[in-house]
């Protein structure tokens, strides 16, 4: 609790004790003949203890012509209640004091709850590094991350955050990326790997050569994004602040009418006016007129929702996007890099005359000097040992001395001598050129045929792999109520068809140029139902125009990609497609809570207004309605923070 809050707590306790003490004394001495205004003056003490600042603010409000200020209204209501008790000689001062007391308890709770969730959420995003261990002239000193120039060498010890993006030049370690991605599995990194600021170094000491300034580093970009996120207000937030603007004056006018009209009508009809009763009811109105419960719970919900989402590795750039995301009807997505890994991997070895592993070994050696991505994927597959039958034998390695007379044959493949045998590795044209009959592959992908000493030895299939979670992601999208899922891709139709059927997606548009994707999205935008939104998911690198054209652009795997963070409305920190459905789920939960709070808070207030006008609710009930609703609405709002099981 802050100092201010502690002081308020003390005042609340003091005023409560005084109030109870006076009340008990009054009961005990009821026959003693102590007369007014003694009790009035005694009750004034706790009233002033708890309410002096409200009265002061009310006074200042009048000077500044702020008539509908809630301080002013509370002051009028309680002073009015005391006046009625005094004039009507009922002696019921306790009500006015209690109303002021509960009002202050409510305010204290609100300020405590908001402060607490504010701190909680900032703690979630506590990825800002405080210092960097800068290495200069052989010495290491703690420096402000801001003053570290790109290209400097920094030292990151276990337990420290990586302060600036860079590349490891020495050491190996495991990194905890959970603060950035929500992914709890640690990531292994080695010399030459790029590391991203904000990750926590867990096991070993590493030396990192920085590649950017701190201000341009991932961690700064993310913090900037999160800190500015709730500035983009949603329609519900704007609705509620507009509502609050009219609600208070409307209730006040209602109160005035209630105080004046019924007595006047009653007088005209020849009955007694009963001013006291109607003024009391009007004062009850004023107690309910404070809009704070409503006004606080909606932004708090969005704030908690955005905070919860960022804990799950989903950055939402504003509450308006959360609102739109909850209405997702159509999801259009890019294929490469979004549903697939976007890197080429050996996915199969067919028609091999020898063991698969042996064929791969020969091909990897033949391709050992090539920089082509296909060659790299063959080497990676061999080195990873994925195709080995017997995992116990020694680790595969590529030994350059086994390879001689390497020759690249213009765009068709490679000819080399491996272990003294003539090896050809390449496409169909290469085989035909050497008079070898290749066996065609019925799978989709890039085929590398291999021939040894003039005989066909089999082929290696290389294709883009579907991410392991893609299928589940599509299923979850359906379960989340997304009516259409469409794949937009620049790839060949048969490749796209294969991926789509593997994932269970029926709608595909293949062979699209980047500009065609925009046209496709525009067509989908026209086709969508009213009130639905269209989400486009891409890996952000060349999808920027589409990301901004769709209602909501989601960029995934965006760690370190500035363009994606700029263009998208929602950024998925890792490249897990399941997060698409999760972000929609979080948005839906958040909006559900928002509507619950709006309906609940307005509903209870309107009910109390009606009961108050009919004389069935007194001021006690009014203040409980006001404070109680706020407490419940705030607690409900905080629920949006919990997103684990969405």
């Amino acid at each position, binding site marked *: 609790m802050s100092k201010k809050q502690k002081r308020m707590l003390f005042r609340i306790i003091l005023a409560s004790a005084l109030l109870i003490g006076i009340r008990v004394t009054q009961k005990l001495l009821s026959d003693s003949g102590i007369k007014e205004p003694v009790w009035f003056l005694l009750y004034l003490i706790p009233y002033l203890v708890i309410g002096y600042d409200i009265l002061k*603010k009310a006074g200042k409000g009048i000077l500044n012509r702020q008539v509908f200020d809630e301080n002013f209204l509370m002051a009028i209501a309680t002073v009015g209640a005391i006046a009625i008790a005094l004039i009507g000689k009922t002696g019921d001062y306790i009500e006015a004091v209690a109303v002021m007391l509960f009002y202050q308890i409510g305010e204290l709770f609100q300020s405590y709850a908001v402060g607490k969730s504010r701190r909680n959420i900032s703690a979630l995003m506590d990825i800002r590094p405080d210092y960097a261990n800068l290495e200069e002239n052989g010495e290491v000193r703690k420096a402000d991350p801001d003053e570290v120039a790109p290209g400097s060498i920094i030292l990151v010890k276990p337990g420290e955050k990586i302060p600036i993006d860079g590349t490891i030049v020495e050491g190996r370690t495991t990194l905890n990326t959970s603060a950035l991605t929500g992914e709890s599995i640690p990531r292994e990194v080695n010399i030459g790997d790029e590391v991203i600021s904000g990750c926590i170094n867990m096991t070993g000491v590493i030396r990192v050569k920085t590649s950017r300034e701190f201000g341009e580093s991932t961690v700064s970009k993310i913090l900037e994004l999160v*800190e500015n996120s709730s*500035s983009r207000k949603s329609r519900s937030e704007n609705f509620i*602040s507009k509502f609050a603007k009219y609600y208070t004056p409307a209730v006040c006018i209602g109160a005035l009418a209630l105080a004046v009209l019924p007595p006047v009508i009653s007088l005209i009809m020849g009955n007694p006016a009963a001013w006291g009763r109607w003024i009391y009811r009007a004062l009850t109105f004023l107690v309910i007129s404070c809009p704070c419960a409503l006004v606080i719970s909606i932004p708090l919900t969005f704030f908690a929702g955005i905070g919860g989402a960022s804990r799950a590795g989903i950055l939402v750039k504003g509450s308006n996007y959360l609102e739109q995301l909850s209405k997702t009807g159509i999801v259009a997505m890019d294929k490469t890099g979004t549903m697939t890994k976007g890197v080429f991997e050996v996915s199969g070895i067919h028609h091999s005359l020898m063991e698969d592993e042996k064929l791969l070994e020969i091909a990897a050696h033949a391709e050992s000097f090539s920089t082509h991505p296909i060659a790299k994927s063959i080497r990676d597959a061999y080195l990873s040992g994925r195709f080995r039958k017997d995992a116990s034998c020694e680790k595969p390695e590529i030994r350059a001395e086994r390879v001689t007379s390497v020759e690249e044959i213009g765009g068709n493949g490679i000819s080399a001598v491996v272990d003294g045998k003539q090896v050809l590795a390449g496409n169909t044209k290469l085989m035909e050129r050497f008079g070898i009959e290749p066996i065609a592959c019925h799978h989709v992908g890039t085929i590398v045929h291999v021939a040894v000493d003039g005989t066909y030895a089999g082929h290696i299939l290389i294709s883009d792999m579907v991410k392991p979670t893609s299928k589940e992601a599509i299923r979850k999208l359906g379960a989340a109520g997304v009516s259409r899922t469409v794949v937009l891709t620049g790839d060949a139709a048969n490749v796209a068809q294969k991926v789509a059927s593997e994932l269970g997606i029926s709608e595909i548009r293949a062979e699209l140029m980047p500009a065609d994707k925009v046209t496709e999205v525009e067509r989908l935008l026209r086709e969508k139902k009213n009130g639905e939104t269209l989400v486009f998911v891409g890996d952000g690198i060349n999808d920027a125009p589409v990301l901004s054209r769709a209602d909501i652009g989601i960029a995934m795997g965006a760690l370190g990609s500035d363009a994606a963070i700029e263009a998208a409305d929602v950024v998925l920190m890792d490249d897990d497609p399941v997060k698409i459905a999760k972000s929609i789920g979080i948005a839906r939960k958040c909006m559900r809570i928002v509507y619950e709070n709006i309906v609940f808070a307005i509903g209870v207030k309107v009910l109390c207004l009606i009961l108050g006008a009919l004389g069935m609710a007194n001021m006690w009930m009014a203040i409980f309605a006001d404070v109680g609703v706020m407490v419940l609405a705030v607690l409900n709002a905080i629920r949006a923070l919990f997103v684990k099981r969405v």
Partner: protein
Amino acid sequence: MKKTYRIEVDCANCANKMQEAAKKTEGVKDAVVNFMTLKMNVEFEDGADEKAVMKAVLKNCKKVEDDCEIYL
């Protein structure tokens, strides 16, 4: 030009009132007060003197909510 200021205010409705007051200040094109992060984003009119404008913003905010503070 846009700038962000840290603010201090107690209740959400007061924050809304500050936003209204800031918006009405001369030289301010648009203002957004964020109660949850206690920040005020101000977009200035072209050629406005931000220091003078912010002084006026603070004065106007104090008028509607005595208890508020803007850290300039």
